[in-house]
């Protein structure tokens, strides 16, 4: 089968599938709330009030974790699937891990600051 499995380690592939499944649920909820309920859902006051609710805050923290992990693990697979990437496996692993941590920590900081 053609998938990222061909270049990922078994644990990385399991994580990619697991985070993908969680994202299908959480991204659908996020998209439904922000884009399909009301035009007002994206107003500043609405966003701040939504994020202040503990259940939404928790959901967004989990979403941020799985999205960042899935995105940069996926990028890692794409880069490793090139001949240049195969030669620089360690550098790509370090770069994508740092990018994941940066996106996740910055997003969390944003989430708990507003």
């Amino acid at each position: 089968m053609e998938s990222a499995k061909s270049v990922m380690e078994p644990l990385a592939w399991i994580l990619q599938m697991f985070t993908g499944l969680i994202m299908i649920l959480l991204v659908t909820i996020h998209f439904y709330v922000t884009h399909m309920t009301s035009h007002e859902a994206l107003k500043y006051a609405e966003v701040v009030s939504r994020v202040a609710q503990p259940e939404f805050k928790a959901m967004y923290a989990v979403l941020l974790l799985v999205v960042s992990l899935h995105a940069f693990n996926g990028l890692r697979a794409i880069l490793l699937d090139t001949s240049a990437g195969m030669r620089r496996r360690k550098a790509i692993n370090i770069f994508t891990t740092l990018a994941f941590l940066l996106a996740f920590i910055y997003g969390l900081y944003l989430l708990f600051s507003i």
Partner: protein
Amino acid sequence: MSVSGWFRFKGRSIFSWSFMFQRITGVVLLIYLIAHLTYLSSLFDRTGATYEGMIAITVSKQFLVFDILLVLCGVFHGINGFRIILHEFGIAYEYRKPLLAIFTVIAVAVWLYASYVMYSLTGG
């Protein structure tokens, strides 16, 4: 498959096409994730003025086409990814070809519905 192989047209199977689209949509969504986090930095301005100024652009009718294309990427990536996971667990592996067609139709249907609702909400 190397990145240059994504754009090879001759002698490709439909699974190879879906794999290529999975990767292209994945890259688009990664770029969007970075842009989204950057954009949300406007929430640091507690008056809301910066955020409201930016959101006015992104919810405009002129911007809707980008939103709709982004939704296409997200819906295809999610639904096609779910199909890959099903096969990974050995579910309906013998029906790979029809399932790819069915999931593509579902993705298009979900995308059209979401686009219609978004268009309606922007006063279309």
